[in-house]
């Protein structure tokens, strides 16, 4: 038993030199195949109204232009997942209460919850709170939290990493000081 384990270990470590001949693309494929994850996630447990508000906020932060918008790259789902599986109970409640506060202010300003405001109404409300963190439970807190998660979720998504930022996982070299947007820079 022990001997077999040892042989297995020796065999495994001995594989390493064989990799020396692989191209960066092959190495990348090897790493990705090994670490492929299942995509399915649990339900968020959020109400449809809350989900709709979050998705709208994400799209207002990162709208579709000549590059994809938040919804097109799955940002709302990422935020729901982080709320359900990653945030603490206090953070999640602070965010939900903050969305309620946003709706309360929307009703005062425009007679409807945030999703029911005109585009101008939404923009002016957000301009008033943008750049302020605010304590948990406030509209400022909800907005800054959603913005942080939306930006993170957007720029770490597969379509944006591949097609917008064109991230090179294996750059192959380091240049310490090159002109911005030069050919030498590549992309990302």
């Amino acid at each position: 038993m022990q001997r077999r384990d040892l042989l297995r270990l020796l065999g495994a470590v001995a594989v390493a030199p064989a990799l020396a001949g692989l191209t960066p693309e092959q190495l990348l494929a090897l790493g990705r195949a090994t670490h492929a994850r299942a995509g399915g996630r649990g339900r968020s447990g959020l109400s449809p109204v809350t989900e709709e508000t979050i998705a709208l906020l994400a799209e207002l932060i990162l709208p579709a232009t000549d590059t994809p918008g938040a919804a097109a790259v799955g940002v709302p789902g990422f935020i729901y997942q982080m709320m359900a599986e990653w945030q603490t109970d206090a953070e999640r409640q602070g965010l939900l209460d903050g969305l309620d506060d946003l709706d309360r202010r929307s009703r005062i300003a425009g007679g409807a919850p945030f999703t029911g405001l005109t585009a101008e109404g939404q923009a002016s409300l957000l301009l008033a709170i943008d750049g302020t963190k605010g304590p948990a439970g406030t509209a400022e807190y909800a907005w800054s939290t959603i913005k942080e998660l939306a930006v993170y979720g957007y720029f770490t998504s597969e379509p944006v990493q591949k097609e917008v930022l064109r991230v090179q996982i294996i750059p192959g070299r380091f240049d310490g000081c090159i002109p911005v947007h030069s050919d030498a820079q590549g992309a990302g």
Partner: protein
Amino acid sequence: MKRDDRKYDAIVIGSGVTGGWAAKELTERGLRVLVLEAGREIIPERDYCEHVPPYDMPYRGKGDRRSLQREQPIQSECYACDEYSAKFFVSDVDNPYTTPEGQPFKWIRGRQIGGRSITWGKQVYRWSDLDFTANARDGHGVDWPIRYKDIAPWYDYVERFVGISGQAEGLAQLPDGQFLPPMQMNCAETKVRNAVAAKWGRERVLTNGRCAILTEDHLGRQACHYCGPCERGCITRSYFSSLTSTLPAAQATGRLTLRPNSVVVRLEHDPIRNRIGSVRVIDAVTLEEMEFEARIVFLCASALESARLLLNSRSDRFPTGLANGSDQVGRNLMDHPYGAGASATIPGMEDHTTFGNRPNGIYVARFRNVNSKFPEFVRGYGFQGGAWRSGWDRGGTGFGAEYKKSLIEQEGPWQMWLGGWGECLPNPGNRVTLDPEVKDKWGVPALRISCSFGPNERAILADAQVTAAEMLDAAGAKDIHTFDSHYAPGFCIHEMGTARMGKDPRTSVLNSWNQAHQVGNLFLTDGACMASSGNQNPSITYMALTARAAAHAVDLMNRHEL
């Protein structure tokens, strides 16, 4: 188990940076060596994940926060322990330790084949006689039994194998090594380097970080491809780890037996022959107990684990711990105070940027108490740091189409930080003992760690903030902010000193060859052996001491003196 499977020429306890070197040197000198590693095996093709993009991770790299808080609340405080790399750090639940109320110590650990050499920061700085004579000059601790001339050829020896990128500078306090080409500085770092040179000349020298990462193909290992996150592994073996460098060399001799999942519980002392007679092990998975025997034992389990093992190997002959007649086992625990310095914006050069992810930064060699005495503290500190331009992760105010476009297309201004890494004085009151009640998952008594920084360490971190700001200011920096993170000891992961070398068996545990004064067939070459801490990142010194001790041990065996 057959009798033959239990007996070896040498047993090495630990498979990290020093255990790997002991295994390589002892097997290459003809010994049959058993390496005992408490943790599991690591297979790079299965376990390394440096090329996995964030969208393939369940939390996009932010970590399974609830699991980390439950299983690894201490480990996950470390910058290198994230969603990808948490598997290379221990479970805090299985591996408890205790600290006095209000006196935290952060013990960041990896138990696996390769130990912490898989996740280490890879910074490599030689010591000089400024360091080896420090205790003798100011009276803290005991004098080192060696000087730079004793270790210099061994620095050369290990560096040639490891592959160190760096720039020779000819500084007496930071000797040059066997360097591969340095990694480039970026535009802002070059600007600050030139400004510091213009103002301070040779007194303050800002140089390229020296690191154990290849800038050229080297001894069958590939040059770095600048993917960036080394703490997740390196499939091309471009950085030095025991797993992909020294252990394969040892395996190539055909004389290595590597046994993972082997928790060493005790070293059994044979009082008649005054040697370690056997090593008691529990299999971490099956919980089977077993013993192994060898002519010599190399203890390379890390400073705190090695001290713990000596303390747990009490016997009638050594009632306070094996080889502990000096009462110094577990004492003089040191770790570099760090996390204080300054950061700033470096104006200009906004039409230039970088390409690739350099896993390295810049270094400023020690300048306090080098040529003249500095009144506020003894010893000194060096700086690590670096400059960068932020990308989309800067966030900022705004929303909508223009905001998105700016995050995609624009970079932030050049920013730079400098952080001091200071020397820690040896203090016998900073010590570890066995906790009388708490045990780990395998029933081994846990450590109780009592350690705090003193006024000298605090004075060093205060000065580092001032001099970092001075240097950034000299380069025309704006928005200069000083910082002190107030990190607890241990958090630098340079813990050392708990079984120090020295000339006198009454005041030290190990002799000038890392051999226990009181037990001739016991060698201890990890950070525990350090009589002082220097301010340099210590791993290359541990490597050189290990190779030197292994060569000496085999010489003694060949001369039948062991």
